């Protein structure tokens, strides 16, 4: 006795409408692969290139009532970004990080579309000029890549260094934005 797609969608919508869900997630297709996106009632809280242990991770971070459900606003803004029609995101965010990472991610959000910056400069703007390495770690753990554009942060030499989605993805995002960088 299988639940029909329609009945399933009806339940998921009712669950969200009643405010019973701690965190919703969805999968968005993109030119850099499937993006796993998640949001709480407060806003977008995760974008991930991988989905291993995804539900468990969401449960740990936001509560056990994890439910897949369409995140249309997130999908639309990401689609527009990848089509080159959107240069910044209007989505509310639910960031749950400590003080310094929050300061760094706040500064990161201000790095303009199509430009790059370095770990060191970002550290300085967040108030700790010698914390370039810590900033590297914070970029590496960025809970909402793309929307918080850690792909725009490069090494002091201009080299791409690391990226959670892989260097190839970082290169493609910068190319899409028309940024200048060392290949």
């Amino acid at each position: 006795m299988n639940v029909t797609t329609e009945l399933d969608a009806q339940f998921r919508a009712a669950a969200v409408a009643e405010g019973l869900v701690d965190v919703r997630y969805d999968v968005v297709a993109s030119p850099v692969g499937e993006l796993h996106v998640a949001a709480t009632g407060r806003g977008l809280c995760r974008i991930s290139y991988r989905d291993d242990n995804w539900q468990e991770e969401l449960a740990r971070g936001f509560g056990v009532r994890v439910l897949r459900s369409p995140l249309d606003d997130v999908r639309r803004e990401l689609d527009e970004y990848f089509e080159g029609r959107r240069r910044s995101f209007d989505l509310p965010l639910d960031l749950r990080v400590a003080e310094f990472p929050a300061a760094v991610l706040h500064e990161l959000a201000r790095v303009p579309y199509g430009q790059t910056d370095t770990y060191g400069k970002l550290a300085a703007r967040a108030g700790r000029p010698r914390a370039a390495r810590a900033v590297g770690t914070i970029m590496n753990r960025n809970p909402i890549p793309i929307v918080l554009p850690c792909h725009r942060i490069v090494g002091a030499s201009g080299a791409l260094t690391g990226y959670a989605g892989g260097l190839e993805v970082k290169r493609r995002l910068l190319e899409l934005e028309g940024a200048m960088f060392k290949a």
Partner: protein
Amino acid sequence: MGTMATPQVPPFERFYLMHRDEVLGYLRRLLGARAEDAWQETFLRALRAYGRLEHGRHLRAWVFTIATNVALDELRVTKRTVPQVDLEPAVELQRDAFRELEHLTGALPPTERAAVVLRYGYDLPYAQIADALGSSEEAARAAASSGVRRLRRTHERDH
């Protein structure tokens, strides 16, 4: 203290995907065409309580309990008591025999219907059927037993 680690409550999505189909099947057997609304109500109730669960043990029995409550509410069963004293010897069915009689369960009184379907359709132990019915284990056994006898009588009458 057991040596087995207490299972954690899984993310709701996992629990939902694991049980949504069989719960719908169960409710179809109890409610027929009215099953879909009851199914949605079952999982909404489960979701309302889910954040307060302390461990992930017996989640299948737990969701069947909720489904049974929803179904019995739907059938407007106000008096939930099932026979406490059953003078007749307990009867059990073989799986094949249940398949043959299954189509007749719709005519059983609701609590007997739930007990029989949970026992023979879903292999729930009587302790868990008792939880689902909100009764003692003896009463759950008596309800299933009485249901089986009723099914057999109906079956014999029709043949």
